[in-house]
Each structure stands twice: as C-alpha cells, then as structure tokens.
C-alpha cells in the first residue's frame, strides 16, 4: 500500500510538462484498483465464502462437528416434510406481513401528523424517534414483563377477566405480542424516513389544492402519497426484509414458545445449526430462505414501483 502511494506520487514530482498530466491520468486507475481490491478480498472472505460454503454443506449430512458425507438433495426434500420448518415459515411470513403493514401505516400517519401545523413539533419528533436507539432485545425483556404482569393486572382491574391471561403464554396469540413490540420499536425509523419524504413536497401544491377545494383525504391520495411513493416502496421492501429475519425480540419475549408456535426461520436455523447438530440440514433451510427473500424482494419492487409510476 505504501509502495503505491509513493508510486502514485512520483509523477507529481516530475517537472510540469503536458506529459506529466497525461501520465498522471493514465496511472490513476491503478490507485483506484488499490482502493477497492483489499475491500473486495475481505468482503469475499467474510461474506461470499460463508454463503458458498453454506450452499455446499447444504448438500451434506454435516452435524457441525466430525465427519460428513455428500447426501445430494435429501436435506431439501426433508425440509418440505418437516412440520417445524414449515411452521416457522408460516409464522415468519404472517408476522412479517402484519408488522410491515402496521409499521408503515402507523409511521406514515405519525409522520403526517408531525409534518402538519402542530405545537412542540421538534419535541414530539424527538420523542417518536427514541425507540430507534434502543436495543430490541432489551425492549423485548421490558415488554415481556408488561405482557406477563402489568397488562393482566390492568385488564383484571377493568373487569375484563377474558383478557387477563399472559398474551405470550397463548399459542394462538403470542405472535400478537411480538408484533406489538416490533411495531413499537420499528415505527421510529420509518417515521423519520417518511418525514424526510414529506418535507420534499412543496407547500405550494397544497395551497393550490386547497384553492380547488380538495379535502384532506383527497389531498393525501392525489398529492402526498404519489409524491412519497419512492419512500413507501423503499420502506416496505426494507422493513419486510428485516422482519423476515426476526430473532432478537423472539428470544426476549417467547423463546419460540409456547411449544414452537413463535419460532422464526432465523431461530430454527440458529437452534438446529448450533445446538441440534443439524448444520447441513439447516444450511439447506437457509438456502431456501435466501431464495425466498430474493424472490419476495424483487416481486415487491416490481409491484410497488408499478403502482408508484401509475400514480404520478
């Protein structure tokens, strides 16, 4: 690296002739290569090699230790007959769809509120952004206590014994608790992004619409939403992708329970791969998961961008 630095500097020391300039430009690419090559090598080693080796081991019966044999595609065939894996896909997708919609609707609503003529705007903005800097694992522990102790006590006091159980202990509704915690934390970041989008819209447009007598909803449908369409697309794709990888809050809230009712794909891969001696098998699961995420992300981009275009 030091060698290149001095080499790159040499032409500069040469007397000022047109040739100097030309040689400098000709040499520039080499420096640019030196800027990227170390990064590419390290990125390849720590990102691409794990992906490729994971793909390879998905074709083996490797337990994570000891010897292994190639077993062809039998891991993949077994995946589709494994109730625990299928269940985790069902849970993860249900969770991600509900959370993505809720986070985006709530964040957009809050951003619209914060962007209108309210008092203490800066203070409220500051408050809504707080959850972004808090660790979701720790938030999960706090909400765990709320769901287990505080909410049941409140509902009992309100005379609603039907709701006085621990939400997280119910196999059918524990996922609701995970959604609530996730939305609480994730809305913050999306509020900021939507707010940024809203501030790019010129106030003149709204004034013109007000003169034409457009109602609030009509203004939102015809001006605001089409103009922040790009933000909507990005937020939907990014939040859906990150919710499909849900892990921390599940560890803190339910640990996958009751039973295996709230086990996410990431949690199944983690448990099977590190604790269950299913390295090869869970790598097959992870490869399927990779393709699912790629397909879903591209479908989302296609559909949302088409809508975005038709609005404008």
């Amino acid at each position, binding site marked *: 690296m030091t060698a290149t*630095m001095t080499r790159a500097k040499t032409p*500069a020391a040469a007397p000022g002739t047109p040739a100097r300039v030309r040689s400098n430009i000709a040499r520039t*690419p080499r*420096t*640019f290569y030196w800027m*990227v090559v170390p*990064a590419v090598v*390290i*990125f390849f080693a*720590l*990102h691409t090699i794990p*992906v490729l*080796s*994971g793909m390879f081991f998905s074709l083996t019966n490797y337990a994570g230790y000891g010897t292994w044999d190639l077993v062809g595609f039998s891991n993949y065939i077994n995946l589709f007959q494994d109730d625990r894996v299928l269940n985790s896909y069902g849970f993860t997708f249900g969770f991600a769809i509900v959370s993505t919609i809720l986070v985006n609707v709530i964040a957009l609503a809050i951003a619209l*509120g914060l962007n209108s*003529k*309210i*008092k*203490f*705007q*800066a203070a409220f*903005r500051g*408050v809504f*952004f707080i959850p972004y*800097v*808090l*660790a*979701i*694992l*720790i938030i999960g*522990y*706090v*909400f765990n*206590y*709320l769901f287990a102790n*505080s909410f049941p*006590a409140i509902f009992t*006091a309100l005379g609603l014994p039907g709701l006085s159980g621990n939400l997280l202990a119910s196999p059918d509704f524990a996922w609701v608790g995970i959604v609530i915690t996730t939305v*609480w934390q994730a809305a913050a970041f999306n509020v*900021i*992004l939507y707010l*940024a989008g809203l*501030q*790019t819209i010129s106030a003149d447009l709204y004034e013109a619409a*007000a003169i034409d007598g457009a109602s609030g909803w009509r203004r939102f449908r015809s001006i605001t939403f089409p103009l922040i369409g790009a*933000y909507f697309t990005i937020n939907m794709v990014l939040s859906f992708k990150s919710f499909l*990888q849900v*892990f*921390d809050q599940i*560890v*803190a809230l339910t640990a996958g329970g009751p039973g295996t009712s709230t086990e996410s794909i*990431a949690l199944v*891969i*983690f448990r099977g791969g*590190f604790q269950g001696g299913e390295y090869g098998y869970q*790598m097959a699961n*992870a490869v399927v*998961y*990779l393709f699912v*995420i790629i397909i879903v992300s591209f479908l989302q981009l296609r559909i949302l961008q088409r809508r975005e275009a038709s609005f404008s």
Partner: protein
Amino acid sequence: MTDTLTQTTAPLPGEPDAPTRAPRTRRRLDGGNGGTNWWLTALIAVCSLTVLIPLYFTVVTALKTPDQLGGTGFELPTSIRWENFADAYQLTNFPRALMNTALITVGAVFLTLLTNSLVAYAIARNMHKRFFKGLYFYFLAAIFVPFPIIMLPVVKETALLGLDTPVGLVLLYTVYGLSFNIFIFVAYINSIPVELEEAARLDGASTWTVFWKVIFPLLSPMNATVGILTCVWAWNDFLLPLVVLSDPSAQTLPLAQFIFQGQFNTNYPVAFASYLMALAPLLVVYVIAQKWVVSGVTRGSVK
C-alpha cells in the same frame, strides 16, 4: 434538511403578544395556513405516550424494592432502592460489558467511515468501467442476502482465523455494512462535481491526496449519516456477538442482558436497573445530539 427543520420550527415560538395579533387573524382568513392545529397536537401528544409509557415503566420498576412489584407496576415507587443499580452493576459486570460495547462500536464506526467511503469513491468515479460497475452490483446484491445463511459458516471461519474476538466483530460490522453504505456513498459522490478533483490533480495531487484532502471532507454529511447508522447497529446488535464471541469476558451489553437473564431470577427491579443501564448511554447521546441524529438519519434517505 437542517434548513427545513429551522424553517418549520421558527414560527413556533410566536407567543401571542401585541404585535403578532394582527397576523394571527389573517392566518385564519388564509384557510388555517400557519395556524396551530390544536386537535392534532393533542392527538400526537396522546400517541407519544405509547413511546413514553414503557420507558417510564422501565425507570420506576428499576427504582422499586421487590415487594412493591404487585399491581399494574405503573405506580410510583413508595421508597426508592438505589442499590438495584449497584447490584446490577456487579452481577452483569457492567463496566466490562460497557467497555467492550464502546470499543466495538467506536472501532466499527471509524473503520467503516475510513474504508467504505474510499471504496465507494473508487467505484463512483469509475462506474463507466466494467470492473467497477460489476463490483458495485456485487456489493449491492449482498443487501438481499439474509444473515442466517452466513451465520453458521462465518462462526466456523472466525473461529478458524482467530477472529472470534471484539476485533473480529469490528471487521464484520465494517464488511457487512459495506453493501448499504456503498449504495448511499456512491449516490452522494455522484453529486460532487469532478471538476473539483481535476483542479487538485492538475496541481499535482495524487488520487490518494485528492480523496483525503478534497473528497473526504466533502463527504462529512454522509459520514455523519453512516456513522450514526453504524453506531446504533453495532451498539444494539445481539445476534452477531452471540454467535461470534467465544470468550465470556468479551461480552457486549445486550449479550450480558441475555446471559444474566437467568441470574436475575424474579428480582425484576435489579433486572430493570440492568436494562436501564444498558439503554442509557445511547439514549443520553441521542438526547444531547437529537437534532443532529435525526437530520443525519434523514439525509441517508434523501438521495
């Protein structure tokens, strides 16, 4: 962004003293333009309680004695037990976890800013070349690779290379952040006129000098954005330290909360004191640098 912030907040301190009364009536004639919407303010205030109440709950629980825990838990403590913090401090070995987290976060932020911007610069200025364009899409494609597929193999690899340490984590955050950071750095660098560099280059500056002396200072708004995003990510991350770190003395703050969960037993006040201590450092930084943090994150999205 900062301009808009000040612009929108500027009319707010307009408390109705005598000279401002005239514009106030005019505002109403303009169709509410500039008038404060009090109903909406109240609604937003109520909504903000959903954020504040769990935080209030964390604070009051951390101050209670275990026998005050009955009821809904939202009651104020009758007597305050500061020892909860001392207990949590010792039980989770707080100073060590704080130190580890701080070092990893600072290391990740510095290495990310220095290297990711450099790579993005080289790519942005050579996008017309097939090699660099290919690299750009290679890095971008990694955005769609979920972490769980890397998780199992990378643990084997870091153990093999001796990177199952805080230093290894710094490297991993820098590498895994590269995809997204290149995406936003390249977009920003494209908006910087090449003429600036050409002037410096005609004066005899090398490409390295041009980057450090001309481009890097111009990147400071984006550096703030990337720095904040990396900081919050590295500070709060749980899964990567959980699987990568092998030495228990290298524990980070979230990891310590997870590991000591069993040891808190039912002593929730101590557990909550521990949560509060783990959340506090970043929260304090955020409160101090609030305006800056918000505008920094927003800038990342306005390309």
